């Protein structure tokens, strides 16, 4: 394990301390617990939006707390959900009477813990909490049948949900309305990833899986969950084509649609490669008659130091476009 850290057990605590030092104008913590991050900028009467999840995905999750996006985030150990208590602390701090929306990824641990926090907030604190669970990784499971639970993992596409819901809340919409917007974004986003190298959880000290020097795994999750295919590394254009075929067919995105595109580096993959990928996505979508409203390229949701990237598409209507384009200012996401 080659990391610039002190004791592995202090990894998350020290990382969080560094964050508060670097961004005092935007974030702080509540309940005497550095794992309970909240925005310093409160807007009275606004619906609060909280997220949460394990560490190891910076800028996800906490990096999107600030103006125009999220209001709070509870942070767990690396790849471990935080506790209900921690989520409850965040919830109490960010509620200003209009209720709180939870937006988080579709993982067992997170669901257990955040459902409990939501119940406690409701019963004990009289805070109305609604939840929207992101599950848009097309490689992780088939689409949910009508009435069935979505079993797909939530990955980088959650940023689109944050952005749209955050802007809706910032526009002072009600909890139900903000939830509706979040659900609309969640329903219209699809993601797929590819991994080239594993990552190492500091407390564990060894890579989460092994992969050959010339191999990639298409569809791998951001904790190293199995993908849909492992094979020899291919040229960028070929990888992008395989991923785009799967993504576009899934919603499906069709001729005439307008989308936002997120090209997300998983940690060790240089921006250069992400732009090479962007170039191919653009020509692919042009050919399909799908218009790109805007691109986001960079590291938005990582797997510590994994090499690889993911592509997310969000289908836009006028409402979502307006919310996506609204300004925001967080430690990792600034849009004018």
């Amino acid at each position, binding site marked *: 394990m080659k990391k610039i850290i002190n004791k592995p057990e202090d990894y998350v605590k020290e990382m969080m301390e560094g964050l508060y030092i670097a961004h005092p104008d935007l974030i702080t913590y509540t309940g005497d617990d550095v794992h309970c991050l909240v925005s310093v900028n409160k807007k009275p009467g606004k619906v609060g939006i909280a997220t949460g999840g394990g560490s190891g995905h910076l800028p996800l999750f906490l990096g999107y707390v600030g103006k125009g996006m999220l209001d709070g985030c509870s942070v767990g150990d690396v790849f471990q959900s935080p506790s209900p208590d921690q989520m409850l602390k965040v919830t109490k701090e960010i509620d200003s009477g209009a209720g709180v929306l939870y937006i988080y990824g579709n993982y067992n641990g997170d669901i*257990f813990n955040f459902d409990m926090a939501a119940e406690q907030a409701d019963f004990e604190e009289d805070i109305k909490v609604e939840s929207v669970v992101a599950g848009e990784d097309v490689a992780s499971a088939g689409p949910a049948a009508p009435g069935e639970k979505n079993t797909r993992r939530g990955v980088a596409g959650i940023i689109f949900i944050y952005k749209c819901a955050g802007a809706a809340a910032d526009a002072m919409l009600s909890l139900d309305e903000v939830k509706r917007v979040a659900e609309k974004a969640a329903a219209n986003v699809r993601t797929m990833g590819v991994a080239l190298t594993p990552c190492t959880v500091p407390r564990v000290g060894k890579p989460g899986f092994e992969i050959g020097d010339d191999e990639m795994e298409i569809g791998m999750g951001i904790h190293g969950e199995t993908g849909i295919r492992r094979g020899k590394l291919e040229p960028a254009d070929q990888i992008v084509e395989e991923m785009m075929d799967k993504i576009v067919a899934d919603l499906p995105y069709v001729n005439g649609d307008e989308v936002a595109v997120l090209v997300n580096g998983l940690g060790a993959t240089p921006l250069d490669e992400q732009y090479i990928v962007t170039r191919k996505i653009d020509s692919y979508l042009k050919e399909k008659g799908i218009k790109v409203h805007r691109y986001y390229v960079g590291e938005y949701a990582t797997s510590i130091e994994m090499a690889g990237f993911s592509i997310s598409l969000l289908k836009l209507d006028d409402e979502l476009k307006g919310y996506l384009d609204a300004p925001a200012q967080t430690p990792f996401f600034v849009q004018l």
Partner: protein
Amino acid sequence: MNTFYNADGKPVLLKIVKAIQENKAYLGEVDGLIGDGDHGMNMNKGFSVFEERFQDEEFTFSEGLDELGMILLNEIGGSMGPIYGTIFMDMAEAGEEFEEIQVGQLAAMLEAGLNGLCEIVEAKVGDKTLVDTLAPAVESLKKSASEGIGFADALSAMKAAAEAGRDSTKDMVAKFGRSSRLGERSRGVLDAGATSCCIILCAMADGMIEMLR
């Protein structure tokens, strides 16, 4: 010698805590083979918080289970917090009225824990999780109760069932959690959660046997 008094619960709970603490490294090793190696650390966290907070307090068995369960459920996070938290809290709830616990009562408590678990996870027997330890332990106690077996013998039988359940995971392919990514390659080693569950059940049984009146 056929009754465990709920009021005698404290040493049993502390024995469970101790067993987890002593097996922290071992559970890490087991999880390291096909998981990510942190199961010992994850388990140790909540149990040690309980010990620290309650070692100087008085509590019954069901109260102790409730407090431990609440700590796991509320404060620990991860998957293990809710999973073991649910098991212990549902056991506690099922047992809170009991003054005397005999085989049938313990079976009912443990079954409530198993049912609580099955409400939150999808894993079934055969999926290489802690369910493979807990379910046969419950079955064994229920069988002992219906056959009128003495408490000490029933506890021994339950330990044997839990151990057999744990060992059965060795030949299984993981369907849930991190190890499931290995598919066929997950066969051949124990499941970490099944192992920790067996440690907990055996420590509980040993603790009770010492306290039987």
